[in-house]
């Protein structure tokens, strides 16, 4: 319950944090993107942080999932080979 209250307090503090991020400390300009009409910069909201988090989480989850699948296939093959060696 205390954890939940703490999370709620943190969540309510978020709107005060976000406006401070609207002016990034250092400015880097990436390449001019396209000849199409330039869209206005996306709003700096918590949503952007969520997108970054989900992108990184999914990318590494895919890689870890692949490593797990490799491990499982290794184990199955080694079991098969041992079974064949042990077979009469």
């Amino acid at each position, binding site marked *: 319950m205390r954890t939940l209250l703490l999370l709620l307090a943190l969540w309510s503090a978020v709107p005060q944090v976000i406006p401070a991020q609207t002016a990034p400390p*250092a400015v*880097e300009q*990436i390449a001019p993107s396209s000849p199409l009409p330039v869209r206005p*910069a996306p709003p700096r909201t918590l949503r*952007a942080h969520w997108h970054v988090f989900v992108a990184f989480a999914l990318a590494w989850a895919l890689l870890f999932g692949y490593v797990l699948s490799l491990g499982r296939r290794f184990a199955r093959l080694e079991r098969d080979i041992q079974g*064949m060696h042990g077979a009469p």
Partner: protein
Amino acid sequence: MESMTGTWRWGVGLAVLAGLAVLAAFWMIFFYVPTEASMGVVQRIFYVHVPAAWMAFMAFGIVALCSLGYLWLRDERLDAISVSAAELGVVFTTIVLVTGPLWGKLAWGAWWVWEPRLTLTLLLWFIYIGYFVLRGATDNPERGKRFAAVLGVVGAVDIPLIHVSVNWFRSQHPRAVILRPEGPTAGPEIVITLLVSLLAFTLTFFALLLFRYGLEKLRHHADAVRFAAESPRQAAPVSGGVA
């Protein structure tokens, strides 16, 4: 089996290096590189999206070269490298296709746009899914390998098309910021962070490639053991192995 241990050892060594490089890349992405001015924090997806795309291109480049070699020499090792790289190519292209829309939704206001680069990348993913479908589509495994090798060579034509699509067609996707004849347009912090991230992805790619190749060798070994168990008078399988 001796060479399998060597492959495994190299894989573990590269995996350790990859882990260190990934930690360095994470630190640079979240603490070193400044927030990009026009796109804000969501631009940090760039440091996963772009290296994953380069790894996918490299994977399918390896598939094309080894498939060509397999069609010419019929060397099972080349086929083993091809199938290992193709699997990794699908994994890294999936990362590109997953991270791109998460960036695009905030930058363009849409999860997906049917513009040339995105469409050609999706086509690349389908081509290499087709590579695995073809391998298993025939009763004769050798014929399946040959068909897949042809697709591996032909499918690689899509890679340069993806690269030049932003210049040849009216594209919503950003143009290259690093690989430009006149030099990178991004700031030095962005370029350095991208290069460290690229190093982390490259080491991860080759570690996984070695593990996947080791798995393929083990599968050939299992086939040889099974063949010997089923026909004790014959010494080795007809097609040979990769060990």
